[in-house]
């Protein structure tokens, strides 16, 4: 008789811990072939609000860390992911299909993407900030600052590379994030959360909600303590995206709109995902004896 | 209370022109050299890396014990608790009679008599908080009555709080005159003036409060009540040690310094002593000029003392 394996429970990731949904609900996750894989937690509106609280609580500490420190932490996430290759390859293959080799390439890209973003922590200021030569005896300096708590709708299809591409720019710039994972393919997000929990990432910097979007995203879009929202995961659903953008206007959240179709994640991301969540502060000071 | 009383607080010094008005006092205090936060914190941290000889460490532990004002300031204090505390202050380690006594016990005014009775002729002093400790928010008459009450009950030392509201609004002369009045009410008792540095927030304010309190007649300047975070820190104490050092340079008079609250381990205590030694000088390495306001610190000092003597750690049991 062959050995029976101990199957994993897939829970939410909020404030550095792994709670079940406070609603007690779960939902069925299938693999690419339609077979049952697991019951994942079905996040509720309250879970979403709790996640925002956790993200807000973590923001002052995370944004106050040196850029060097943040880059070290994000680099460490990459280290731990690399160390867990087989697990991620399996998770990607399961949800997205394809071979182990193609899933391996996806993982390579995700890790390299993390490393790319890690290196931005202490450089984005040098590239987007500068002194301004105003016409007067004043020292004038513009510097970027993190906007605060960001809600992100993770891509529906690219459940690991796309996920990382949406989360990394937000945290490397000093923001904290609540991510609504791909509803059909949430499992890599949970495994990713486990990596975060063991990579020196303070609790609450990244929070992961699994489940269908109807319960969580509307709450996030209208939440008054969320500073920005990334609607990438709503690519191809313009009506929903518009409704959320309307809700976001209540406190003038910075909105990254849903693209028409899911982006090519292999392409150079550019600076946009970082500058979207950075404010620019300009300070004047007279120059005189 | 007029400012002429200030002229006799530290014999030989006449601060009368500085304290003649709020404006002149402000000019003096704001004319003191500023404190750069980053630089002060870096210096304090650097001093914390010094390592002292084992023989010096044994002496340092005993010195630290002798500098402790063993404190209990809880709403739920009882005579029984105070008696036990006082007994411990006299014989901190019942198993070892060579262990020195602490400098003082520190209690609320209504428990001074109990402490005094237990301490007897042991030489351990009774310090009492007063002036509507810890907030200081009461009428001046009430605060002075609080002081007289504690002194009448036998307090050797009075730990007063300054009016932080007045200080932060810039009413320096008011703060000054209050300290002068309290000093008068102390009679022979020694006065410690608590700044509540956590509420003052800036090191510039700590420097100004130091000079103000010293000019008003403080025997000791003290960081905190222990009821507000942050309480004592190395950089705040550094600024106060610089102030008493400078004061002696100018006038020849010494004033004591007491960090209180948040000093829990022997390692912490030794960092403070190193700082005293390098910043103010070895003359301050004496319970007459430096105290620790603490409760749990004593236990760790005793543990380390036992370890140095026997080579073994004992636990809280």
């Amino acid at each position, binding site marked *: 008789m062959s050995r029976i394996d101990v199957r994993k429970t897939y829970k939410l990731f909020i404030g550095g811990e792994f709670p079940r949904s406070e609603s007690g609900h779960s939902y069925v996750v299938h693999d690419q072939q339609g077979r049952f894989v697991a019951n994942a937690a079905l996040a509720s509106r309250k879970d979403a609000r709790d996640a925002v609280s956790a993200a807000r609580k973590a923001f002052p500490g995370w944004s106050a860390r040196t*850029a*060097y420190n943040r*880059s*070290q932490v994000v*680099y460490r996430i990459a280290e731990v992911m690399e160390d867990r290759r087989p697990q991620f390859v399996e998770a990607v293959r399961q949800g997205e299909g394809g071979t182990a080799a193609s899933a391996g390439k996806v993982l390579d890209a995700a890790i*390299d993407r993390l*490393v*790319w973003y*890690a*290196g*931005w*922590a*202490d*450089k984005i200021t*040098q*590239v987007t900030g500068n002194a301004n030569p105003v016409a007067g005896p004043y*020292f004038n300096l513009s510097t970027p600052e993190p906007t605060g708590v960001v809600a992100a709708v993770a891509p529906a299809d690219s459940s690991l590379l796309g996920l990382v591409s949406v989360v990394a720019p937000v945290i490397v710039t000093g923001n904290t994030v609540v991510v609504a994972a791909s509803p059909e393919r949430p499992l890599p997000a949970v495994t990713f959360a486990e990596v975060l929990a063991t990579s020196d990432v303070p609790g609450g910097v990244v929070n992961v909600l699994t489940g269908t979007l109807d319960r969580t995203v509307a709450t996030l879009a209208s939440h008054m303590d969320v500073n920005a929202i990334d609607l990438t995961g709503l690519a191809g659903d313009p009506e929903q995206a518009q409704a959320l953008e309307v809700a976001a206007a209540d406190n003038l959240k910075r909105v990254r709109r849903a693209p028409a179709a899911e982006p090519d994640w292999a392409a150079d991301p550019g*600076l946009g995902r970082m500058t979207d969540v950075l404010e620019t502060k300009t300070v004047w*000071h*007279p*120059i*005189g*004896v | 209370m007029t400012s002429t009383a200030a002229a006799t607080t530290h014999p030989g010094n006449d601060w009368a022109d500085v304290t003649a008005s709020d404006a002149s006092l402000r000019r003096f205090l704001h004319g003191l*050299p*500023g*404190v*750069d936060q*980053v*630089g*002060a914190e*870096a*210096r304090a941290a650097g001093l914390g*890396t*010094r*390592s*002292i*000889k*084992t*023989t*010096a460490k044994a*002496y*340092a532990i005993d*010195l630290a014990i002798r500098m402790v004002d063993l404190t209990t300031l809880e709403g739920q204090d009882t005579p029984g608790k105070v008696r036990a505390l006082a007994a411990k202050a006299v014989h901190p380690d019942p198993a070892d009679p060579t262990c020195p006594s602490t400098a003082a016990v520190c209690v609320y005014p209504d428990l001074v008599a109990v402490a005094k009775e237990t301490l007897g002729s042991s030489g351990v002093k009774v310090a009492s908080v007063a002036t509507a400790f810890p907030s200081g928010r009461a009428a001046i008459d009430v605060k002075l009555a609080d002081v007289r009450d504690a002194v009448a009950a036998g307090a050797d030392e009075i730990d007063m709080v300054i009016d932080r509201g007045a200080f932060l609004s810039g009413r320096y002369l008011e703060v000054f005159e209050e300290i002068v009045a309290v000093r008068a009410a102390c009679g022979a008792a020694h006065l410690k003036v608590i700044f509540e540095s956590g509420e003052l927030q800036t090191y510039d304010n700590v420097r100004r409060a130091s000079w103000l309190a010293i000019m008003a007649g403080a025997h000791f300047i003290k960081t905190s009540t222990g009821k507000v975070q942050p309480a004592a820190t190395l950089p705040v104490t550094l600024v106060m040690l*610089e102030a008493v050092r400078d004061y002696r340079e100018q006038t020849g008079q010494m004033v004591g310094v007491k960090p209180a609250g948040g000093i829990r381990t022997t390692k912490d205590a030794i960092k403070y*002593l*190193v700082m005293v*030694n*390098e910043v103010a000088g*070895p*003359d*301050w*390495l*004496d319970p007459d000029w430096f105290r620790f306001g603490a409760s749990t610190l004593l236990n760790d000092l005793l543990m380390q003392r036992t370890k140095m003597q026997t080579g073994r750690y004992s636990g809280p049991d």
Partner: protein
Amino acid sequence: MAKNVFEYAPAPESRSVVDIKPSYGLFVNGEFVDGHGHSFKSISPSTEEVLAEIAEADEADVDLAVKAARRAHSRVWGRMPGKERAKYLFRIARIIQERGRELAVLESIDNGKPIKETRDVDIPIVAAHFFYYAGWADKLEYSGHGTESLGVAGQVIPWNFPLLMLAWKIAPALACGNTVVLKPAETAPLTALLFAEICQQADLPAGVVNIITGAGDTGRALVSHPDVDKVAFTGSTEVGKAIARAVAGTDKRVTLELGGKAANIVFDDAPLDQAVEGIVNGIFFNQGHVCCAGSRLLVQESVADEVLARLKRRVTTLRIGDPLDKNTDIGAINSAEQLAKIRELSDIGEQEGAGRWSPPCELPDHGFWFPPTIFTNVTQAHRIAREEIFGPVLSVLTFRTPSEAVEKANNTPYGLSAGVWTDKGSRILKMANALRAGVVWANTFNKFDPTSPFGGYKESGYGREGGRHGLEGYLK
């Protein structure tokens, strides 16, 4: 009266973490090979003990190293995608962190500087440099300086911050796709040789980094080698000028980081106790062996006496001694030669009429030692106000007005750094504008960060190291 019981125990960091070999070869094309010049000894400046025998690279050795670097550039490193280069640099950064204690102890033994500094300042910043530049390798298109490497860089570094100077040279060069041949200083080569081992541990492709030991001749051969595309030099202004002449008429790119005679300017409204710390840090940190040292104190007349009194009191608490002792503030002078120079110039200072003061201090019998020294009543005419001493010697001048301070501060062919101490923000900015110096420290001194560009005006050199600006020197 309390007795002063606070004797500081010797708290020596253990040497056992370090394994110094009896002799070292050159690191060329990924391996240690013999050198064909005259090998020499590296000694510990605090004890004068011989540490190891070091190979000298002769012209043929230099040629082999450059050839190895060229091959590695054309075949491997120059065509490797930035994101792969980045990961090599991240590996190196990590290994430096992992072997941090070993590197700190070795640096203190070989150079003479206190373990407190190597452990808390030098080595952490070395690791941070590699981390910072690792992160540029895959995003050069955002640098504003181009994306194409130059080729082979010949780099010569001094003995005052051996591993840190190596990091400042190698990290940006490699990030930009160049390969390097680096010559460490002959009086402090050991951490560079340990770095070579770290390159091996990181599986860095052979020839990307080559370390060739030697003295002046080796350095000359390297910078004048025809197949070197870029020359980077940190050292004396005299040698810097010689290099500038040598590369004239060639296509070689050059960056120079040379000497300094920085003014540390203290105004009457300065936060005095922190200003004193800044003065002390400015000239006595690293025994004053710092190109950007605040070697001239310009103090406003109205506070001059007070500042000097506080300064002397503070200097009296500095501890000179065994570099491996965690309580040591000031270590040994790096070599007998340097000690002789410091003594010579100090004697000249006295002869020229400046007032000389040092705190009483017991100096060890063996090794090269010089007590912290302060000269007062110094004028611009004195040699000690004009020439770089490169030791723990401070010259004190006074001024009355800001413009006088600026004029005196700028009255030097050097222009590396300056310090300004005042509580007034607008004055900081005004002084910063007026001072002809590449780095201005306001209410602080001797602060370094991989993100912050460092380099001089005038005869302190040209080019910048650190930050985005530090990439320019290594890209086409």
